[in-house]
């Protein structure tokens, strides 16, 4: 009796793991209510899962995806736009103020001296 219970448990384990049964095991299985109940349960579960995962895709889904793709692809910035975009982003940084100021001074101070020596001194002002 214990041997048979063990055997049935082993068969049930195999059924649960969906492993192939030998002919001898199949013969035991046919007469075992426990095994049959398990097979029915698993078949029912598989059928339920199959229904659960077979969903309907809403109508127009593909068009919605393609519209989104085209919507994002429509705007392709030109090289001019990219330069302006780069400059506006660059000038947006706070740290850029100091280098721009220094650069401006480097350019302005020598020009001031140049104007002074080239224009005002020759005129004798």
């Amino acid at each position: 009796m214990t041997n048979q219970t063990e055997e049935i448990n082993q068969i049930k384990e195999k059924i649960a793991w969906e492993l192939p049964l030998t002919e001898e095991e199949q013969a035991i299985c046919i007469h075992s209510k426990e095994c049959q109940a398990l097979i029915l349960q698993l078949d029912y579960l598989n059928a339920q899962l199959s229904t659960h995962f077979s969903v309907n895709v809403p109508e127009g889904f593909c068009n919605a995806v393609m519209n989104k793709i085209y919507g994002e692809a429509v705007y392709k910035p030109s090289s001019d736009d990219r330069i302006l975009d780069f400059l506006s982003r660059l000038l947006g940084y706070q740290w850029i103020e100091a280098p721009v100021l220094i650069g401006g001074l480097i350019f302005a101070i020598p020009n001031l001296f140049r104007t002074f020596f080239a224009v005002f001194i020759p005129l004798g002002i």
Partner: protein
Amino acid sequence: MDDRLIAKQVKRGNTEAFRLLVVRYERPIFSFLQSFGFNSEDINDIAQEVFLRGFKSIASFDDSKASFATWIFTIAKNYALNQKKNYAYIHELNDQVLIENYQIENQEAENVQADSKHHLSQALARIPERFRNAIAFSFLKELSIKDIAKIEDVAEGTVKSRVHRGKIMLRELLSVKAGEQV
């Protein structure tokens, strides 16, 4: 037409060719997202985003490394997991599914069906993610065990084991539920 050829066309700038891939994979992607417990509206949004991301990153698709199915499902899995972290779906699931499923009233047979669907959704939401994914993937004819193993980054044997263990867990959860009702 082979997925790889279509993907090549898309890479060359034929945007319209991507429509073929969307049509081919929309249903399996929806089915897969269903296993996460998202509601139908969110599944629609997430699926759209998955395809959009797929299109944008098509240049990174290397057909010598994986099939298109493996590649798009990897995107879907990662994005869905990310979305799931952002929203507390498991906690909301009860209410959402109840509202969705109990809209049909006075039809006993349909109510019974909705009830079992609800229990299955709940049970799926309760099993660990790796088992749930394996089960969901195994019901998609578009994916082979080899594909699933690549997506999940595990051995093929592990995929099979996860599918079976997942089903055992589901069966136990559903029989507990049935026992509670009796």
